[in-house]
């Protein structure tokens, strides 16, 4: 448990809207910390479609998800936001002094008068294959049971491993774990892979050497007792089923979006969205704002440009909470020397 970090605003989600919120808050001298479960900024823009062009950002006729993220990072650089990547906002509670304490699953504690939920559709989490009772075998310790990521390779030494999937993660871990494993079986729905060609070549080489068994098949059932995995049932292309002794099952099908712990924040969610007013974009809980895809209000459009507008209005309202005794003067970046100073462009 770390010492709580005090700041003005904690933003949950470092997607385009969370990033632009840093800018709008920064112009008002409000400092921000961002929490994101992903390992880098950009949210859906960089996780789902980094290379795909977006055509409806005002002033940018064509921009990819990655380019937009890079431009936003450039734009907010002067404001020195602090990032907490690979962390999921896991708990929120009100303190006696009226501020909020947000905890993450990594033990970070952030204390601020204003919380901004800019979490899009929620948290990116690994896709869980529709295999009965798979949850019972998760979180059973390193090297055994079901894992969606590998933390300690050494824990898999001497184990019978089944990997499912055909992307880079599936192939990379097949290649990395094969030398350690007692046996390693890779299953995929086709005899082809979207992974990098050199990884596919390496996997084929391991297959020729007998270090890896590859089947066009899928995992249909898990076997074990009291959460200890002992085997899997595989089903081949011809629907023929067979069992395989298994200590660890590693499915790699990428990420999907689940709402996650935000559901427990007491924000009167409606159909997994946070209702807000359209003057402040504040939830029904004072001090907690919601901007971007996660909020709902009459006429809501899930567009990045709408989120930018929401961030600007949120920042004005947040100022009055963070600086109750100060007067807020509306200024333009084109003409205000004090804003230009903050942006580091003052002549």
């Amino acid at each position, binding site marked *: 448990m770390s010492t709580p970090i005090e700041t003005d605003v904690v933003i949950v989600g470092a997607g385009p809207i969370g990033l632009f919120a840093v800018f709008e808050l920064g112009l008002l001298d409000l400092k921000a910390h961002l929490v994101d479960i992903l390992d880098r900024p950009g949210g859906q823009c960089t996780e*789902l479609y980094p290379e*795909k062009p977006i055509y409806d950002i005002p002033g940018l006729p064509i921009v990819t998800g990655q380019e937009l993220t890079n431009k936003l990072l450039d734009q907010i650089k002067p404001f020195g936001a602090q990032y907490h990547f690979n962390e999921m906002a896991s708990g929120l509670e009100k303190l006696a002094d009226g501020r909020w304490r947000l905890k993450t699953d990594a033990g970070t504690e952030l204390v601020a008068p204003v919380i901004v939920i800019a979490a899009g559709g929620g948290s990116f989490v690994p*896709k869980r294959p529709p295999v009965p009772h798979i949850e019972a075998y998760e979180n059973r310790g390193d090297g055994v049971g079901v894992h969606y990521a590998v933390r300690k390779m050494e824990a898999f030494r001497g184990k019978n491993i089944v990997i499912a999937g055909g992307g880079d993660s599936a192939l990379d871990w097949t290649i990395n774990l094969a030398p350690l494993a007692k046996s390693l079986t890779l299953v995929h*729905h086709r005899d082809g892979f*979207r992974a990098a060609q050199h990884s596919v070549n390496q996997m084929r080489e391991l297959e020729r050497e007998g270090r890896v068994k590859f089947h066009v098949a899928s995992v249909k059932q898990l076997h074990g007792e009291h959460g200890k995995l002992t085997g899997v049932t595989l089903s081949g*292309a011809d629907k023929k089923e067979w069992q395989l002794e298994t200590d660890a099952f590693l499915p790699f*099908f*990428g990420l*999907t979006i689940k709402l996650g712990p935000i559901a427990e924040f007491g924000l009167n969610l409606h159909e997994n969205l946070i209702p807000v007013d359209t003057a402040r974009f504040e939830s029904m809980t004072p001090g907690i704002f919601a901007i971007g895809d996660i909020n709902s209000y009459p006429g809501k459009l899930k567009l990045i440009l709408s989120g930018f507008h929401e961030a600007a209005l949120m920042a004005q309202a947040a100022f009055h909470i963070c600086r109750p005794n100060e007067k807020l003067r509306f200024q333009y970046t084109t003409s205000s020397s004090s804003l230009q100073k903050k942006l580091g462009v003052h002549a």
Partner: protein
Amino acid sequence: MKIFATDRKGAEHVIEGRDGWSVMEMLRDAGLPVAAECGGACACATCHVYVNDGWYEKLSPPSDAEVDMLDMALAVEPNSRLSCQIVCAEALDGIKVTVAPE
């Protein structure tokens, strides 16, 4: 054109398809639980459906990008497609799809 869509509970829905729109958009507009996280950019595999009763063969084959993206889908079968990549047209009147598990 009409789309006959079976949801994850086995209930069948008859949905009016609009020419030029994707089957994913029609399913989502009809309230079926198709996540379609990337919004139809063939980038997430969360609009996965099975195409039934001989309709799979009547579709134009999936692009390389779709075949690649299906590698990230769960419970893929030989008749799996991403519904964002199936475009409604009169020739597909009566197409049968089943929403894949999530």
